[in-house]
């Protein structure tokens, strides 16, 4: 029961990379990625979205309105892109 094992694994509070999960559960990386996609699509885990700057009134360049995830004074355009992806159990 690989996906139930995966969910159980996450209950211990530790964080793991996809590779570590694959090794621990004896699956291939592709299988783990597939399970993650499935669990995300079905709302069992969720991708963590970071709002980088919030209301950063401190920065002159902070954009206002709906799309206030980033401000050019604190983060590069469009936020940090290469920080990897994190998921957590909903």
């Amino acid at each position: 029961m690989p996906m139930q094992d995966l969910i159980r694994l996450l209950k211990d509070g530790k964080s793991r990379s996809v590779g570590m999960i694959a090794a621990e559960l004896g699956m291939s990386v592709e299988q783990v990625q597939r399970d993650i996609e499935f669990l995300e699509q079905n709302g069992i885990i969720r991708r963590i979205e970071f709002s980088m700057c919030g209301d950063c009134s401190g920065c002159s360049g902070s954009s206002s309105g709906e799309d206030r995830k980033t401000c050019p004074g604190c983060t590069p355009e469009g936020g940090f892109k290469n920080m990897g992806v994190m998921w957590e159990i909903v």
Partner: protein
Amino acid sequence: MTDKNEIVIALLGQPNSGKSTLFNALTGLRQHVGNWPGKTVEKKEGSFVYNDRKYLAADLPGTYSLSANSDEEIITRDYIASGKADVVCILADSSQLERSLYMLSDFAGIDVPCFLVLNMDDVAREQGKEIRVSDIEDRLGIPVVLFSATDRKGYDKFYAALEKAVENKPLLNSDALEAKYGQIPEYVSIRSIIGDISDNSKSSMWLAAKAVEGDAPVVSRIRTLLSDDKAAEFDEAVKNIDKGIVKTGECKFAWIDELISGSVNKSKKTVELGKFDRLITHRIWGKAVVVITILLGLLASFIPALPFMGLGSAVGMLPDPLNEMMINAGCPAFIAAIVCDVLIRCLGFVIQMLGFVFGVTFVFGLLEEIGVMARISYVFDNTMAKFGLQGKSVMPFLISFGCTMGGAAGTRVIDNWGQKVLTIALSWAIPCGAAWAVVPMLSTLFFGAWTPVIIAVILIVMILHMWLTAKIFGGSLVKPENRCGMIMELPPYHKPKWGALMRYVFGRTKDTFIRSLKVVLIVAFVFWLLSYTSSGDASNTVLFKVGQAIEPVTMIFGMKWQTFTAFVASSLGKEGALGVLSTIFSGTGTLSVGMMAGGEQAANLNELLLANITKPEALAFIFAITFNMPCIVALAATYQETHSVKWTSIIGLYYTFTALVLSGIAYHIGLLIW
């Protein structure tokens, strides 16, 4: 079949399976776009003729599955089950069959003629995969085509399979999948309650599986098909299912794995972890490597900082000659003093500081661009658990290196209030971007080549500070059972995008310049006014008198009244300290000249500072401002995020207190050294 005698073929596939490519290749320009009845979901149809047969292709919305998660999915499955399509063409990506066949497995149980298209054959081949189509065909009982939708020459195979499907009306063999479902007790009980009912082409197996998944439209549909007592029994059975979607999902994936095992040959290509990845994921060395990486990064950022330092101190030389010039030109002494003592000196200071902002932003921006920052956060992730925090707290911490306000706002991803407050409390211990500019600058001024050591010590103290703070506040804020695990996927290494990086670095430097100059100027101006006397004898000012009065106390922490005042001003923003230093220790209405040996006027501020502050005092001062509250706005941001006056004031007072304690310790250690 439509009224115009067209055979209807529905294209079903996940996003990026190549559905549009296939659709366009089949229909060319004979397309029209409409909406599905009553919904705003786009409906694309197009016609084509092959071997004198007329076809109408319907491009269904690309969705992950056929569950009831979205309108698109419900439209799609109701359309294919309605029988309006004569044949369903299911697409999958050959290069990743184990995941892309999920659509097929979710379709299994809908009894409509169909065939399977394994698209992206070229990509699969490139990966060294060899797919035996006939094996898969045997197992599924439907035609299977392996081809590339982008390769026009391979379409014969596609049309052949299409014709076969139209003529033979093959149904997907789902016995093996049903056998797997049979191992789920919930499925078995629901299946026995609903018996052999079906809904259009949705078989009882499909309906029962969806009921196990808790699919609301299917559940209510089944209820209408059952007798009253059966419906009650059904409701009872459905109510008690927990995470049914995971259970059926496992069956579907197991079915897929069986389907492709033996039919796909993969040339073995194990993915090797990169050298750096192996190093940082090492249990013992990982953290050390990361700390050294950060330290080297900070040191590297000194290189671009040096020219700024030079420029800044050159500007800092200007005031005295300029002052003379202005006085000679008949400018009132008061104005000349403002321009020289406040404006120019502050400008010099801020320029010196900017170099470090530029350097730090550049180096860490680069580390982020190439994917190293993600690995750093990965390494510290499990350390978070020791603090009683979620792994995702590592992100607000990293942001806090740039700006504590950003870090505080970043804690919005943390739903648990206690963890959120603790994360903010700990993020205060992380020197922010302004600290990383002011502190290296002052260190270079006082300790020259020893600066790297100071920076290293600050990093170590920061870690201990966070650890201790977590110990102090953790107990009342977080419970270990609130923790749950996380999955992280590291990004591949990238080549940096220099353009975007440089825009970011310059943008941030400019931003910091404007903000710092504002803070420094305001603080400097206020203190200049407080210390200005027309007589030139500052010892009569209130500031001086109060300062002298509190000095016995502030010396406990290793700070003379001047540096202590600068420390207080640093609560407004670390740059504020520079504003105080630049006015108190310099200028025509100076407080410090009298203290200088021989009473001779020093050439510039840097020398003045060196002459007036001893090394142990400088060390104390550096620690005091580094670990003081980040800035007044961070205090406001903390309140905004925690909505707690109590915790905001606890955190504020705690940091003021610990900063003083740290500065006292630094002073006494300094006394032992120098």
